């Protein structure tokens, strides 16, 4: 369905303490994954305003990843729980506006899971590639 040369635009918002550190660890271990994801660092996934996600999809993002600490491991005690709760809301919202909610994913990658980060990256890119370009792009000026 999609052009071979099409590269999806995916934004990841990841927490400083677990997933960002896990991504760094993947680098140190030279775990190779597709280069389509652009990461934005925040201190905690609790910081992720649902509007950031809606904004990204409005701007034409093909996929989004929110990645934080495992439950119980949050550097700020419970930010990841609160973010995870918001994800249900946002996923519903996406479905209602006709976007496949698989375009938004939340994962939990700890600072010691470099291998898992690589797997998540590969999987997110593959999922979005299967879904194809975001339909919202069509309606943009």
């Amino acid at each position, binding site marked *: 369905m999609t052009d071979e040369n099409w590269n999806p635009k995916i934004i990841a918002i990841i927490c400083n303490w677990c997933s960002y550190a896990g991504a760094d660890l993947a680098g140190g271990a030279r775990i190779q994954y597709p280069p389509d994801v652009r990461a934005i660092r925040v201190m905690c996934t609790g*910081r992720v305003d649902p509007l950031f996600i809606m904004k990204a999809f409005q*701007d034409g993002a093909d996929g989004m990843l929110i990645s934080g600490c495992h439950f119980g491991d949050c550097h700020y005690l419970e930010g990841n729980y609160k973010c995870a709760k918001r994800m249900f809301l946002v996923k519903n919202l996406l479905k209602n506006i006709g976007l496949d909610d698989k375009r938004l994913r939340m994962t939990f990658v700890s600072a010691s899971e470099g291998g898992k980060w690589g797997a998540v990256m590969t999987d997110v890119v593959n999922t979005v590639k299967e879904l194809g370009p975001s339909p919202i792009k069509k309606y943009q000026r």
Partner: protein
Amino acid sequence: MAETKEESRIGVFICHCGTNIAGSLSVEDVKEYAKTLDGVVVADDYQYMCSTPGQSKIIDAIKEHNLNGVVVAACSPRLHEPTFRTATEEGGLNKFRFEMANIRDQNSWVHMHDWEGATNKAKDQVLIAVAKARMLEDLQPKSVPVEHAALVLGAGVGGMQAALDLAGAGIKTYLVEKLPTVGGRMSQLDKTFPTLDCSQCILTPKMVDVGRHPNIELRTYTEVEKVEGYIGNFTITLRKKARGVLTPAEALERGIVGGGCNGCGDCSEVCPVIKPNPFEMGMAPRKAIYIYHPQVMPLLYTVDFDSCVKCGLCVEACGPEKRAIDLDSVDTFEEIKVGTCILAIGYDLIPIEEKKEWGYKQFDNVITGLEFERLICASGPTTGHLIRPSDGQTPMKVGFVLCAGSRDNTGGVAKPYCSRFCCMYCLKHAHQIMEKIPGAVPYLFYMDIRAFGKMYEEFYYRIQNEGAKFIRGRVANILEDPITKNLMVYAEDTLLSRPVAMEMDMVVLAAAIQPKPEAEKIRQMFGVSKSQDGWLLEAHPKLNPCGTTTAGIYLAGVCQGPKDVPDTVAQAEGAASAASIPIHTGEVQLEPYFAQCIDSLCAGCGMCVNLCPYGALALVEKDGRTVMEVTEAKCKGCGTCGGFCPGGAIKMQHFTSPQICAQIDAFLLKGEDY
């Protein structure tokens, strides 16, 4: 979307990191691209931006081009953000006018064979970083005073060493131990390799020292209940478990002059309840009122209320003068304030009985290394006579299964890692058998002998020359002769490429080690992550092995990963040194990522107040309206409030919504729309 107040003058600096970055993407292309970006007035590259000349480039450029923002595209901000912030400051800018693009750890290293993809990603990363840099603001770090006290959790050899070092440096140190005595695992050992020092003999001086040191507040039979606060200002609630026995000081508080426990043991003698003593690995009895072993510190009996039948015989035996026993005592709580904490919570053996092939707990004569330590120890249950548990006979052929559950990828209770000290203690056990039982032969079934430490390899040669037999191969299974209770050990001798079956009188399993079950709860209370293998995670495996990602919390000993005694003591001294730095500095700087309320947007709904895990937010009356107010000292900057506020009234400093939206827009709209 958001307006930048001043004209952006951003400098972009791209690091080659030798070939780490330049070998996988085109630094030149990224630099030329950066020059085209809005707000960028200078873009430069250098071999090593973190070197002195590299930093000078930044400092000089800030002055020459009158920059108001700096972007460095290099490694991870988790590594070099402090370096470049300092350079930014030296150039005359506020250090928070700096943003990093992680084009190494999260780009060149993970897209090594995709030159174009990596180059495009690096361009976008620079674009995103510039978008943020254009909106950065001057911030001032907040200084907070540091409590002149420390907590050490766990009083094994590591915890005791850390506490003694801290106390020696003039810091009031709370040494908290869950068990009734200090000493930890090392006090259970008979001898230590490779010097064959008596373990208790070298440990007891330290045990006595921690009991006597004027700066050490010893809290045995005590657990941590709650941890609050941050570096410099931790408030920790301790649960002092009901001990049932009063110290002389506690007795005096109750008006019993000259009373309290003096360790005479009269109570234990009359106690009718008999339980296995965990210190002796369950191979010796203890009473419901007990001490672990004769050298306990403090010398103070403890009532095990789980098994006590409250018959009162001990109270009678203790007598009306001492009146040391109170069978109605309850848990008490104490709140302490400390600046830094060291976790030294040790390890357990894996439940090796779940490796059914070796028959532990099925066959009497299969024991673990720790049980061997107690059996061979002069103060142990057999006063140092090594006997077979099945019949009390002296074993003449003793098999050792090394890597029992270590370096084992079969899952279950097995661990993929090396437990590090088993090779050496098995060599030591082999020596002890040959020394104590003339004619006895130890057989060591090993995969590799890892004798890595100082004088360890020499010790290995010594044991070989003394006549121990080494068979290279993992033991497949062990079967018991039901009549003689001898054990048939089946293995493959991989050096001779043939299966072996040998009859042993006794088998010692060098069981793998694993984190304590309570480690999970403790690490979550202190905000420490764990490694993939379950041990507590250090801040950096090479450069910060004692620290954690939570400022003010440090690690010592096996809780961070398997270690022998010398390494544990060395790490404890390192942790003590690290933990004393903030205390002696007297103040720490906190990053000013605080929440701020924009009063004009705040509707006073109060949702954020309930979301804050630290109780940092409150609703107040201001100019006749209800608005939220932040207590900066309590705010840790997670942004959970800012992520929710329906009115966008909460500004998370350094991670503001306009900044994050600008980053998103920059990448997706390539700067066209904002």
